[in-house]
């Protein structure tokens, strides 16, 4: 079915497969995708682009998660204390609180 969506872009016929091969680079190049001729005539690829843009937008909602429990810092302190000298070469016996 791919070839059914073939259309013209810059005087050349572009199929869905060709458009989708270009898509990763188009996304990352800063290219304005809505200007792509192929999208004006191919609802399948237009839907794909809409979805991928939507997913990338929604991904921003995923931060932040919550903090680790206080036990993590306590364990780090303990391990550092057991390690002894600081790697910088300066001994520091002051516990980190």
């Amino acid at each position, binding site marked *: *079915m*791919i070839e059914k969506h073939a259309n013209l872009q810059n005087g050349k016929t572009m199929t*869905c*497969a060709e458009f*989708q091969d270009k*898509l*990763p*680079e188009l*996304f*990352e190049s*800063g*290219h*304005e*995708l809505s200007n792509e001729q192929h*999208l*004006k005539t*191919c609802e*399948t*690829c*237009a*839907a*794909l*682009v*809409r*979805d*991928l*843009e*939507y*997913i*990338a*937008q*929604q*991904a*921003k*909602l*995923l*931060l*932040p*998660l*919550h*903090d*680790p*429990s206080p*036990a*993590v*810092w306590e*364990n*780090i302190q303990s*391990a*550092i204390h057991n*390690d002894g000298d*600081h*790697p*910088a070469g300066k*001994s*520091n016996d*002051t*516990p*980190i*609180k």
Partner: protein
Amino acid sequence: MSTGQTHPKPVHQHMRRNPPIAGEAEAIARAQAGDPRSFEMLYSLHKRRVYSLCLRMLGNVAEAEDLTQEAFLQLYRKIGTFRGDSAFSTWLHRLSVNVVLMHLRKKGLPQVSLEETLEPSQDDGPRKDIGARDLTLSGSIDRVTLERAVENLPPGYRLVFILHDVEGYEHNEIADMLACSIGNSKSQLHKARMKLRELLRTGERKESAV
């Protein structure tokens, strides 16, 4: 034919999530000299992001906390080697990513090998026949649904997606962190989004069938 009624901002134009932090440079310098309070400050500033990365990659609180601990212990041991060639958060993230990958490899997940995971694969590539036009996402994907879908991504895809789309790192930074090419990072990100689309659409179809 229109491409749709809404036009979200192009995906590359997202905000960076690691802007400069006031006092961080001084804290780094003091921590490098062995000041424990400054190291604690660095922990406070970065614990959430490191833990989030670990939790998203492992999906398990106990393991994520263990690896957060390990990442900061490595930071403590290696902070003297930080030269400021990249942002501190990027440097720390690279260190954390390595801790996560080492852990996943130890668990024996073959797909976690970066060389394999980040190698473009024809099998996992975008499908050219996207399907019928009614298979578009509804535009109502909430955070929980997306989190769940991200959990189901293969680890390599998940890592690049989290670093780029969630955390806002650029491909050159990700390539540096993962020791892969920029093209590889771009390719993996695209595959991750394609896979997420598939997972989210499958979820929508299941919901509508109930």
